[in-house]
């Protein structure tokens, strides 16, 4: 019983970083209706810039965090300009494949920046794990949970209480209608893309600072975890992304404990496949999105 709760707690804390990854993904998907495969590599590029800065200039954890987030946002802007802006409202598959091509670019650029496969990433909290009752906590995990909650709250607030957020929600509802009522759609899309990449940067920093290391594989890892979490929660839904991330973290923690890492990944993908086949809208999404998109295409 104690193990069960401990695993759930650990899973929820790791899951909070998945939730952030999914949140960024879902912002891009919701506004643009397209998949940014280069999302994980964008974050990886930010983390590489942060590692480079810390190795080169010996800066502390907080400045590194700023470099990571700003770096991810700038690389995100590059991806948006090259893979999404030129296609406008058409050619969704082409922009997805294009984002894959840019993924290859980013990965090679990162290995040129830091040629070693494994690079040390500055740790955020040096404190040892502590116990609370029968349960063990890592300070990094608590910080991850706190920052992820704060970031998700901030995004939710921005979406519901700012002019930009209103623009984003209008574009998510209906892009053409948003254009007609005078929402500067291209600017909203660009800002949403940058915001999503910056959120990814926050997630990437938290994960890398917890693991104390970063490899070029981080890009693929972040893309797949973010994708699974987003799809579990339902495409384009902010609460869904959070729920999907937490659910994925908890499922993985239990499976890892019971069966080891291979079966853990097998089950994570299996759950995604089953959810898609049986319940295509995800945990919190609805069929409305897909139907609305189909109707929009017909018009």
């Amino acid at each position, binding site marked *: 019983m104690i193990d069960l709760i401990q695993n759930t707690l650990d899973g929820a804390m790791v899951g909070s970083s998945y939730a952030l990854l999914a949140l960024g993904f879902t912002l891009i998907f919701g506004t643009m209706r397209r998949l940014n495969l280069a999302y994980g590599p964008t974050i990886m590029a930010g983390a590489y810039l942060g590692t480079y800065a810390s190795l080169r200039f010996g800066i502390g954890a907080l400045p590194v965090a700023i470099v990571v987030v700003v770096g991810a946002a700038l690389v995100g802007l590059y991806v948006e300009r090259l893979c999404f802006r030129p296609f406008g409202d058409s050619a969704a598959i082409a922009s997805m494949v294009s984002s894959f091509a840019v993924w290859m670019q980013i990965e090679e650029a990162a290995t040129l920046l830091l040629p070693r496969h494994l690079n040390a990433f500055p740790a955020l909290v040096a404190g040892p794990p502590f116990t609370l009752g029968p349960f063990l906590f890592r300070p990094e995990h608590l910080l991850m949970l706190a920052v992820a909650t704060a970031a998700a709250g901030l995004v939710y607030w921005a979406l519901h209480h700012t002019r930009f957020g209103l623009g984003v929600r209008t574009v998510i509802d209906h892009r053409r209608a948003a254009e007609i009522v005078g929402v500067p759609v291209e600017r909203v899309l660009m800002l949403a893309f940058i915001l999503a990449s910056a959120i990814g940067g926050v997630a990437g920093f938290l994960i890398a600072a917890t693991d104390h290391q970063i490899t070029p594989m981080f890009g693929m890892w972040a893309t797949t975890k973010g994708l699974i979490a987003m799809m579990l929660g339902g495409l384009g839904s902010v609460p869904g992304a959070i729920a999907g991330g937490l659910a994925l973290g908890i499922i993985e923690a239990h499976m890892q404990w019971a069966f080891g890492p291979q079966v853990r990944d097998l089950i994570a993908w299996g759950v*995604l496949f089953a959810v898609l086949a049986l319940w295509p809208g995800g945990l919190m999404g609805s069929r409305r999105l897909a139907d609305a998109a*189909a109707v929009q295409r017909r018009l």
Partner: protein
Amino acid sequence: MDDFLIGVLTNIGIISFVALSAYMLLLSGEVSFGQQAYFAMGAYAAGMVTAMLGWHLVPALLAGALVGAAAATAVGSATLRLSGFYFAMATLAFAEMTRIAFELFAFRIDVGGTPVGPNGTDGFGDIRYLFENGITPLQYLMFVYALLGLVLTGFFVLERTRFGRALRQAGADPLLAELQGLSVVRIRLLAAAAAGALAGLGGGLYVHLLTYIEPASFNIMLGVHSLAYGLIGGLGTALGPVLGVLIDIGVLESSRLFAGYRMIVFGGLVALLLIVRPRGLLDERAVHWITSHLKRSMYAAGRSGLDGSLRRR
């Protein structure tokens, strides 16, 4: 021909199968990130048939294609309701499950004193059919391209049949296709099965070329690459995906061009190409232009030939 060139050309031919498999689904309007799953299944099945049962290559390849088609049909029926990104994600999920399942799959039997068979993450080696039967790399190259030629001919014939047109129609506008009385679900299921068979066949060829495979070779990268080949080369003709493979493996990977920053150059070129030509180099318009010009010049040549013969008389 030197061995390096033969190796590269054989590889291009084999990867073309999985690229054509992704292309088949793109024609039906579905994006699959998961054709590497059927490629892997075909590879394992065909390798097991020759290395463990000691059978001939042809039934082994057939077994690979059959396993690919069966699995693709099963996945296709489970995901019939899905379209767009949901389908793409479901295929990716299935492919990753397949890869991990092969990491856990160990089944070795004793063949001539040594254990042979898939052995989890350590892979599946000792598939020495070509070596044991004295098939030279050049002969195998010919065999691969003969099969590829058959498949391409099949695609050209398909484009001229009712089903081929229905396939393109279902891809271009599924709602309109339904209104015209076509069953989009059935068309897509058939396309998925054919695509699975193609990938399985390619996998069978692949395993005998390499003699050793491991689950890690069948990861997401292979799936997204095979999808990208069609979009780079063009969706207008089955030659498009082959052209895509040729550009990537033939020109860039095999030459020492841009060593060290090849991906930066290639990735940028692909991104820019897709902006100019979102459906690839040989898209429908390009294919139409080429075929109409060909027809016109053939017609002109035929007529001048006739005139000449008339004049001579």
